């Protein structure tokens, strides 16, 4: 991203629409936005707000129809707020088990799907995780770990580095039973298996530059916002 406005980064008067190519960035943005929402309806409201906000900057954000019925961050996982993160850290002594549980909450997927089919690799940014996919219906996805759970991610990364066989996969070796038990102790509700369900919603999201931003000058809130209307 360049400059204060994403829509202005291309310059005005371009040929539209133009696909937004940074899909990992889009996935990180959306998952971070939704995964920390306190409820499904709040996650949907946040995404709708993002759509409205981006449209003012000349960007159309497309998410699956009937968003509330989809699965994925903010919609099917347990809200990962400070209270939930504390409970996970308290009840799951093993940092890798704690992270697997937190990742399940963030992805909104069943723990069987997460552990059996995915690798979870931390990225350079301390709050982002790349979860490789398990097939055409389960594509690889980028997730942003909500702020409350980032200490869990940091602990898992540190712990993994200290093991005899360090690996980039933070959930390697963790079993479904371990996570189920930790979830039970921490009071975290795990999503059930949803065989045959479509991919998680934020991997289906796309964005396009569709027009020049509606504002002139800097972005709203920066002190020099002048809207067209």
């Amino acid at each position, binding site marked *: 991203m360049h400059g204060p406005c994403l829509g202005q980064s291309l310059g005005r008067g371009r040929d539209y629409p133009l696909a937004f190519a940074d899909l990992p960035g889009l996935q990180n943005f959306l998952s971070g936005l939704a995964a920390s929402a306190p409820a499904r309806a709040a996650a949907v409201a946040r995404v709708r707000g993002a759509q409205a906000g981006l449209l003012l900057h000349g960007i159309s954000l497309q998410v699956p*129809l009937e968003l509330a019925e989809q699965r994925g961050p903010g919609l099917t996982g347990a809200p990962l707020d400070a209270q939930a993160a504390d409970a996970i850290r308290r009840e799951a002594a093993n940092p890798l088990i704690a992270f697997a549980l937190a990742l399940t909450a963030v992805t909104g997927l069943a723990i069987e799907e997460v552990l059996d089919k995915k690798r979870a690799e931390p990225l350079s940014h301390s709050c982002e995780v790349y979860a490789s996919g398990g097939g055409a219906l389960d594509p690889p996805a980028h997730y942003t770990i909500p702020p409350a759970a980032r200490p869990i991610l940091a602990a898992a990364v540190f712990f993994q580095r200290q093991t005899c066989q360090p690996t980039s996969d933070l959930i390697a070796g963790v079993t479904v039973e371990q996570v189920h038990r930790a979830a039970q102790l921490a009071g975290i509700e795990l999503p059930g298996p949803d065989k045959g369900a479509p991919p998680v919603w934020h991997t289906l999201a796309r964005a396009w530059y569709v*027009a020049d931003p509606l504002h002139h000058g800097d972005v709203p809130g920066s002190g020099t916002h002048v809207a067209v*209307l």
Partner: protein
Amino acid sequence: MTGINKNLIDTRAYHFGISHEQIDEVLGRDDTAIEQGLGPDPEQISLAQLGRLAELLHLHPADLIHDGPGPADWEQDYTDGMLAEFALAGAGGDVAGTVTMLGWSPSRLESATSTVYHSPQWSMGVADALALAAQEHGAARADGHEPGGYRAYFAKRTAPDPFDAGALLRVLHTAAPGQSATATGYADPAQARRLAAHALAVIDAPHGADPGPFTDSGFDTRVAVHPDLLYALDLAAAPGPSPADAPEPTFRNDV
């Protein structure tokens, strides 16, 4: 379990109109052997046979081998239905045009429209709106049904696309400063209808009013951005009137 992807073979053969006899000929085996050969045991079909079969089905041989269970039912069953629905809406119910556009065999279109009819995902009265009748070469719009209703139904089921969003922003860009309460501008007639069908805008020009700018697609249509959208974009202080009080959207030249 690794094996031959028989579902894919059946699906491709069906889509391309390839008969079992043609598959039989390519493989050089009788029906019983084919049935055994296309079973889950990869040892029962040779690499040469696999290559010939892949060529017939316009696939790479590796595509015919699958690991574990195949794709989920929703992907197999509904993709064609969605494509057919999209194409039929774009073609305004012109079945011949739809077949040409999709490059499908008539039987594939018939299968897809049948999916549209019978799937619970299309249970919201689509049969009445779509009103297709099966014919010898696929399906045709039944007599007495106009495509406008189907277009409106389709628009409600699909999110606005980037072109809709661009048109909407162009309307907002052309709206005069201070007109946030009405935010009117111009869009080409087809785009205006799409915006209206998505409840993003209301066609603002009564029939016979001064035409808008003349473009390649004719005179543009004057549209007003929907007040609820203006409110959602924080460009208006209040949403529009409740649906009970609001006038019905105008679909000029639509049906």
